[in-house]
């Protein structure tokens, strides 16, 4: 990071810190679990689909995607990336996966012992791998490829994703639900066999209720950020999201921590306290942040850039009424599917057929009243990048909001230049100012 002195400008929300601490705690728990002879699993982010099952079965979970970000943030990803290259994996693959291949190769080399240089105590050898078809090809092909280093089974969770128009066809949604429920039943049977224990269905019900409550709170906190000035910066969102996104640690504790966060953010709204000293520009960030260069946002905050909404894939789905459904697997299925399909009807009404992940940025910009979009296409993550040129085109055509497109990578810091962003900041501010006038003339409300 070459953005000068590390002056902290963003007014961090205090209640975020205990939530952020749960990430480190999760690695510690997995290491302790192994010592105590309890199972640990490596999982992809499953958007509340597979995680409740594992929680209810008392299985500790670590997330290599998250660990890839941690390696990047700690600035130590490079040697694992180099190892992956040496193992013969193509260099254009997902940066998280490459870091993980390097890590797994080291793990195998050490006979299953955690590499001593691994940050945060490292990830212990798993009992099995839980991959997911959701979001990208990498998230199941990666775990399949880990077979080279880990002789452990892989369970791949399905994630149906029909087109926005095709979703309207009769029976489509119910077929998605049917697939999700049947698939979860098979997954439960697999986990029971893997840990030689039966599912505690009462505990699963409680887990599902807590997970849904955590996501409700997370959603409500995001809604509070529509206030002007925005009380909570994207950096705080990214720091506070893992316990909801990954269902980390004790869920009752998480509920309380998100309540605390909600209260502090609500108090800020009530008292007109913003996340940065002077909010001149409100921005949306898409998609995955440069984990290795996050203090860039302090430099941009000095210029009055407040990041008020971000990263669709990390957000909780809008709440839905599941009170009439008794089967916890059906509750999980419908809740998890909600993340993608919740916006399908609106998207179709606005003739956005390019997917929920495109439509959502129109919604974000309009409802969070953004002046600009910071789009971060990633060299090694096609799924978080492909839609961004289309997002930029739509924001300009429909809402007269300009975008700043800065290419980078989630793990490889050699591919991102924060100084380039700062160089482009002033002309982009002129652009945001200009389009404010254009929007006013076009009768748009911000």
């Amino acid at each position, binding site marked *: 990071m070459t953005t000068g002195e590390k002056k902290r400008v963003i007014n961090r929300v205090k209640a975020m810190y205990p939530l952020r601490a749960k990430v480190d705690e999760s690695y510690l728990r997995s290491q302790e679990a192994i010592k105590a002879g309890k199972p640990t699993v490596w999982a992809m982010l499953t958007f509340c689909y597979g995680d409740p099952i594992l929680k209810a079965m008392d299985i500790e979970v670590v997330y290599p995607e998250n660990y890839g970000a941690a390696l990047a943030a700690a600035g130590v990803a490079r040697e694992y990336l180099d190892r992956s290259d040496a193992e013969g*994996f193509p260099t254009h693959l997902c940066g998280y996966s490459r870091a993980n291949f390097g890590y797994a190769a080291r793990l195998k080399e050490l006979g299953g012992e955690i590499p001593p240089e691994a940050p945060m105590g490292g990830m212990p050898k798993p009992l099995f791998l839980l991959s997911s*078809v959701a979001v990208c090809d990498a998230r199941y092909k990666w775990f399949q490829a880990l077979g080279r280093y880990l*002789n452990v089974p892989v369970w791949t969770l399905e994630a149906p994703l029909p087109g926005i128009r095709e979703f309207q066809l009769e029976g489509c949604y119910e077929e998605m639900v049917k697939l999700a429920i049947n698939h979860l039943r098979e997954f439960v049977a697999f986990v029971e066999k*893997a840990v030689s224990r039966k599912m505690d269905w009462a505990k699963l019900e409680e887990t599902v209720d807590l997970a849904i409550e955590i996501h409700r709170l997370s959603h409500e906190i995001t809604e509070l950020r529509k206030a002007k000035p925005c009380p909570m910066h994207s950096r705080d969102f990214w720091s506070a999201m893992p316990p909801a996104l990954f269902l980390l640690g004790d869920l009752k504790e998480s509920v309380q921590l998100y309540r605390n966060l909600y209260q502090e953010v609500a108090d800020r709204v009530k008292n007109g306290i913003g996340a940065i000293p002077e909010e001149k520009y409100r921005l949306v960030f898409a998609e995955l942040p440069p984990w290795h260069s996050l203090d860039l946002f302090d430099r941009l905050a000095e210029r009055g850039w407040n990041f008020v909404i971000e990263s669709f894939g990390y957000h909780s789905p809008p709440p839905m009424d599941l009170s009439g459904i008794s089967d916890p697997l059906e509750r999980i299925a419908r809740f998890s599917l909600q993340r993608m399909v919740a916006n399908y009807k609106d998207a179709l009404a606005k003739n956005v057929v*390019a997917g929920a992940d495109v439509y959502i940025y129109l919604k974000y910009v309009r409802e969070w009243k953004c002046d600009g979009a910071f789009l971060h296409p990633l060299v090694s993550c096609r799924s978080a990048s492909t839609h961004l040129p289309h997002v930029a085109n739509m924001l300009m055509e429909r809402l007269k909001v300009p975008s700043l497109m800065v290419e980078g990578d989630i793990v490889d810091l050699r591919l991102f230049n924060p100084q380039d962003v700062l160089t482009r900041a002033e002309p982009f501010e002129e652009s945001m100012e200009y389009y404010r006038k254009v929007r006013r003339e076009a009768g748009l409300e911000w």
Partner: protein
Amino acid sequence: MTAKGLARVQEIYQDRSRRAKELQSQGKKVIGYPCVYVPLELLTALDVIPYRIYGEMREPVTEADRVLPASFCPIMRSCLDCALKGKHNFLNGMVALHASDPQEKTARIWQSYTTLPYFHFIDMPGTVLPEAVTYFTSQLKGFVTTLESLAGRKLPADSLRKAIEAHNQQRTLVQSLFHLTESSPPLVSGTEIVQVVKAVMSLPVDEGNQLLTEVIDEVKERKDKPPSKRARLLLWGSTTDNADVMAVLESNACVVFAEDCGGYRPYRGSVKLTSEPLNALADYYLNEITCARTFRQTTTSATQKDYLKDLQSRYGYLKRIIADWKVDGVVLLLVRYCDPFAFEVPAVRDYLASISVPSTYIEYDYTEGSLAPMRTRIEAFLETIG
């Protein structure tokens, strides 16, 4: 139409859309598809002409740059680029599916930036579990619904059965064509097969079958057989859609088997004729097409894993091909950013090493400029295998 057999293949290869446009002028509807996972039987049964959409390696990508990032599947970028330049404007519609992320995402962009009267997206599960096959069947039902609207009539059961039979016949014919490369020297070159497959995917199934029959008869009888070369190679990868690529690989070797979507892969096995044809189609396309995009493993619910057994279950079918076609080496050829296949590269090479078959991995960017480095790489590989 006067030319027959390989001469006819050449005609079509040079001007792929001509026949589709002729049929369109006679009132037929033509639907484009970018991937071999689309069950063409459903189109054929409703008298809709399937037309395979390919990229154009020699056409610089310009228009797609404004809607797709550069670090993205170059084949899908090229396909979309051609569409944005109006090259597919004659189509009555398009069907794409979730065979890979690039295709899924390109399909959505495609739909947003073009004005085709018909567009359908089929969702595909990632696994071959029974519930996944059931879901895929339901997706095919949805496809039939919109196709029936396009065709203006209901899908007759007997037509679907006949369409399945016709496409099964096509699979058998392509399998027969590949058997003509078993001899040494092979009776037909890998370069010619790329052209044949591409031509067949530009025609209605019956015309494609007629063409294949002519080609097979001609090849069996012809005097100018391809010469013997230094090595017999198997090509493994996503797809090879340009004869120039194969010609580079065949400069000093014979590609006797193409395990990719421009070769044998779409024609393996056959669809079962059952009383549940949609289910049979779902089952065939998910289970039989060995594209890397589908997650497979030895036993789905097994709680133990053995890497070598896993490799055997995923790639074991290659062993018999390698033996029958007397393959000296395997070329893993991928376009850059083809993630599903790229993740498999070390595993495939591990498997091949386990059966003592030399292999090399070559990556290219789907441009003309990538052919010269490819030639150097393949020459270097041939040196190593003697």
